[in-house]
């Protein structure tokens, strides 16, 4: 089932389409929203709500953007609402540390620690800065796409990226080598 067929099936209320939608986009959305909200349980709820809203309003999808972009727009709105609701509370990362420890790849423990430090530093950014960092470096979006998604100008996106990167530079220990040419590759790939 290609994207157009999936949308048509969703509009007709086909249950198989729901299964396809969850399988195709569920985990991708979950991983992205986990980085945005920093809490796995809330990330699961946000994904389920996103898919629920998307299925109910499938009639309003006219194919002007990719289906994932449309889903991501819904997810972003819900995440922003989530942040407003949880303003002032501290998010705790509940991704089980045991999972990381149990991985049969001890040679990559260094990279896991670096990944943990980076994700933790991203959580300390303001929501606007966190969004652009995740859209740019995790989702691999172009500046114009980010500007369209967050409804601002490309100049503002570039400015936010600049300040967010500068803040990350302060938060991340220098030994991680994230901001030097070669970055972590130099350290982990001898």
């Amino acid at each position: 089932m290609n994207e157009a067929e999936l949308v048509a099936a969703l509009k007709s209320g086909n249950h198989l389409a729901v299964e396809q939608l969850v399988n195709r986009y569920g985990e991708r959305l979950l991983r992205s929203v986990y980085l945005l909200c920093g809490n796995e349980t809330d990330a699961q709820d946000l994904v389920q709500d996103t898919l629920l809203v998307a299925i109910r309003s499938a009639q309003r999808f006219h194919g002007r953007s990719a289906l994932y972009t449309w889903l991501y727009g819904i997810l972003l709105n819900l995440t922003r609402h989530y942040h407003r609701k949880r303003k002032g509370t501290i998010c705790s990362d509940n991704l089980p540390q045991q999972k990381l420890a149990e991985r049969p790849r001890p040679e990559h423990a260094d990279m896991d620690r670096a990944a943990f430090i980076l994700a933790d530093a991203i959580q300390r950014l303001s929501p606007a800065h966190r969004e652009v960092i995740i859209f740019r470096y995790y989702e691999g979006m172009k500046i114009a796409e980010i500007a369209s998604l967050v409804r601002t100008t490309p100049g503002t996106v570039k400015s936010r990226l600049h300040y967010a990167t500068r803040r990350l530079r302060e938060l991340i220990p220098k030994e991680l080598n994230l901001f030097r040419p070669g970055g972590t590759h130099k350290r982990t790939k001898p």
Partner: protein
Amino acid sequence: MNCKKCQKLLYEYIDEALPPRTRASFEEHVQGCHECRQQLLREQDFSGSTSELLHRRTESLRLRQDSQRGLLDALQSGASPRIRQYGWRPLLRPAVVLVTAACFAIVAAVALRGHKPASPKPSPTAPPLRGPESFLVCTATIYADEAKTDWIERRMIVETRNGREGQLRIVARKNPKPDQTNQKEEEQS
């Protein structure tokens, strides 16, 4: 292309969103400028490293087993999302506009009702007042010595109706000739 322009177009270059001529100009500058070349490499490496680390961080995440079942149940039961997309917030903006407009209307009404035209204050550049009706009070006679001259002179401090103070000087000839002006009046502010 200079360094400033080059740094401004860095993201567009990486996104391959520059027109061919600008792209060529950018590459030409980067070839010759060590600082800009380093910045481009730094950004590309930071992008690669960050992407790799964040994917590593999230690769163990899986959707809940009951996610699909929960979604179907929610669709069948017509339940609303747990985290509501729209609450009272969409109403906030019109409410703020209405309250602000009402406040302005009240302030304007009160100001117009309590408004009285202010009495005109004499400006420093106003012409001196003339005519007997302008003078309200004569507070003192300050000079009255005409024994040694042919002239009678009186000077008085006067106050006008608007509270303005000045001097009035009256000069007259003791034995006036019929063709001469026998009296002068002037006011000094």
